[in-house]
Every structure is written in structure tokens, then in C-alpha cells.
């Protein structure tokens, strides 16, 4: 909202310190949602290399030398990509868990413990992410 003078950060996200659980959940959900769409687009872009690959010789495909397989393999060799993948997992897991929380809230379930369920989503996300790190990193070195 426009102000005739500057009230400092009162009006915007400068108040983040005073945000409550529900607001954080909203922020995180938004953030993770955006990351996921962003990923969806890039993901399809990368996978599209399968289109030219489909035209290549059967032998090349057999050997895994096709452009699609090569792209994936190259990417997977990068440590950065592995780390990003862990991040993606975290993002997806949070979005799923909090999304489930939101779905329940939409059904009118657990409104009183909405803050607890948010914290639970956070903790669970952390736990799942950490637990899956080995799987993700495997073979990267």
C-alpha cells in the first residue's frame, strides 16, 4: 500500500522476524513451489535431448553414447548437480509435506495444531533429506 512517507520496513518483509508459523509456512511453500516449477521446465528441457537421441543408431544407443545418455551422465558427474539434487529433494519433500498439511487444513482437519504440523513438516523434511544424502552422492566421486 502506498504511503505518503516512509514507514521503514513496517509495510513489507522487513517484519519477517515477527512472522508466525503460518506465515513462514506460506513463504516456504511459495518458495518451494516456485523452485519446483522452475525445475519442471528445466527438467523437460534436459529430457528433450531424448528426441534427437531417438533418431540415432541402435548401436549408439546400446553403447550409451547417444546424446541423451551422455547429457545425463555428464550432468551427474558434476558434484554441484548432485548437491542441487539433494536441495531439490528437500524442496520437494517440504512441498509435499506442507502441501499435505495444507490439504488437511482445507478439509478443516487439525486447524488448532497448524503450527505444530508446520514444525513437523520442517523436521521431517530435514530428516528425510539428511537420510538420503548417501544415496544421492553415491558414485559421484
Amino acid at each position, binding site marked *: 500500500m502506498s504511503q505518503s512517507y516512509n*514507514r521503514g520496513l513496517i*509495510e513489507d518483509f522487513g517484519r519477517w522476524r*515477527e512472522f508466525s*508459523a*503460518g506465515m513462514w509456512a506460506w513463504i516456504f511453500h511459495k518458495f518451494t513451489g516456485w523452485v519446483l516449477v522452475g525445475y519442471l521446465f528445466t527438467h523437460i528441457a534436459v529430457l528433450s535431448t531424448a528426441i534427437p537421441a531417438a533418431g540415432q543408431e541402435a548401436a549408439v544407443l546400446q553403447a550409451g553414447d547417444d546424446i541423451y545418455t551422455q547429457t545425463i551422465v555428464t550432468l551427474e558427474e558434476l558434484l554441484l548437480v548432485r548437491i542441487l539434487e539433494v536441495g531439490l529433494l528437500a524442496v520437494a519433500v517440504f512441498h509435499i509435506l506442507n502441501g499435505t498439511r495444507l490439504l488437511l487444513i482445507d*478439509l478443516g482437519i487439525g486447524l488448532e495444531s497448524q503450527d505444530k504440523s508446520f514444525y513437523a513438516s520442517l523436521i521431517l523434511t530435514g530428516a528425510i533429506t539428511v537420510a538420503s544424502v548417501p544415496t544421492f552422492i553415491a558414485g559421484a566421486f
Partner: protein
Amino acid sequence: MSTQVPEQQEEPTEAAAETETQIPSKGDARRAEKRRRAAERRAQKQAEEAERAAADEDTIELKVFRYDPEVEGKQEPRFDTFHVPFTKGMTVLDALMYARDTYDSSLTFRHSCRQAICGSDAMFVNGTQKLACKTQISELQEPIRVEPLPHAEVTKDLVIEMEHFYEQMHAVEPYFQTNELPDGELEEQRQSRENREKIKMSTRCIWCSACMSSCNIAAGDNEYLGPAAINKAYRFAMDEREGEDIKQKRLEIIEQEHGVWRCQTQFSCTEVCPKDIPLTEHIQELKREAVKNNLKFW
């Protein structure tokens, strides 16, 4: 002690400059003079009080947002510090009134009932929307920071422009409508206990606008009806006495572009509501009600 001190020193010169350049009316000159004296007196009084306060354990420190669009030195928002002697059971409103009546009579805020029913004194206290009269000082961390409600135009000091909030409240046809009045003159239109119980909480709203101020969505989308107005719609939509066709109309109102679908279940409205109205729950129930209703037509 207070951020206003340097400005006060400037004020006399400013007033003098004014006299030279434009020819002010006698009243203006007197007012300027008076302002200067008032400022001096206030500074002195505050200094004395602060000294006394420093010596006294049982004093609380209040940092209050100040702004006045037409008073020099207040056009730039600032925080003033007041020291108020603590008494048992003291509320933020009591402290503000004390500060006003003792130190600075221009300290401005709305208040009336002092008992959490008139809804005039919702403020931003230590970072949350609170009713000043219902907030015990003893539960707060010092210094206590008091600001006008966020996401609203400030009129002066702690007073905000309420017009927008009232408009949103009025936008949901906030009045009882029914086609089913009984025939007899003195016959009441019956309502079941369960139904009254269902709408009970929603009828407690005191129009303080704390919820609206706390909602990020309302801040982003100025036309969003907001939790209070939707709750008002709920109060009528769920009232069995209104009848089916009117309920249809009510659902259409809350389903509009800036209606219930805007709510992102942030819950902050529910958390700040001084009347403990389960706002999010009501909004969610209306969403489901709307969906159910729509599916019927499909």
C-alpha cells in the same frame, strides 16, 4: 533519551525563518511560538521524568511511534521514549494514557471503552497486532515498542485510516436478510441452539482490524475482503434463519475475485484476533461450502 531532541533545537530557527519569508497570520506566529514553548517544556519535563525514572526501579520504558503530517518535526516519523511508573494490572493503554496526560498531550491514539469491546485501540505492540487495553504490560518485554497497525495509512501517531477496512466490511452485505419472518407481530423467528452456537464466535467481532493488518495477502492485494469481512459473511451465511436463496447470494459474494480464494491459510489473523474468533477455520469452511455448492450445479 528520545530521538526528537535535535529536532527541537532546530525548531525555533525554522519558525523564525518562516516569519521572514512569508507573512504569516498572527495566529500562525502565535502557534509557532507556542509550539516551540510546548516542545521546550516537554523536553524539560521528559528529561526530569527520565532522571526520576532512572532512579526508580518500577518504571517501564515505552517507545512510541510519532507522526503528524502538519506539525514540523513530526512529519518525519520518529519514535519517542516515555517512562511510565508501573502499577499492578497496568495495560499498554493505561501506560499510553499516562504518558499523554503527564508528558505530552499531543500523543494521539484511539480508545474508548478500556475493556476490549469497542475495538478502537488495535496497535502494533512489540511486533504483533494487539488491543492496547487488553495487553498487560507485565507480559511484555521492555522497551515496549508501540506502532500504528501495519498495512494502513497513518493519520497521526497511532491513529490509522480505517475507511478501507470499513469499506471491506460493508462489501459483504453485512446485514441480516431473510424471507422467512413469522406471521405474528410478536412472534420470534426461531433458531436452534446448535445454530446459534455455530455462529456465536463469528458474532464477536469488534471491527478492530487487527486481523486485516496481520494478513500478508491483505497487504499485497488491497482489494482482498480480508478475514474480518469474510467472517462477517460467515456469520450470516451460516445462520439458518436466512434461508437457502440468500445463502446462495452470500456464497457468490465471498467467491468473488478478491474473496475467499485469496486466503492462503496463514493463520496470523486467527492468532491476533483479540476476540479469539477462529477466522481461518471460518474462511476454510466457506471455501468448502462454496465448492460443495458449486459441485451441486455441475
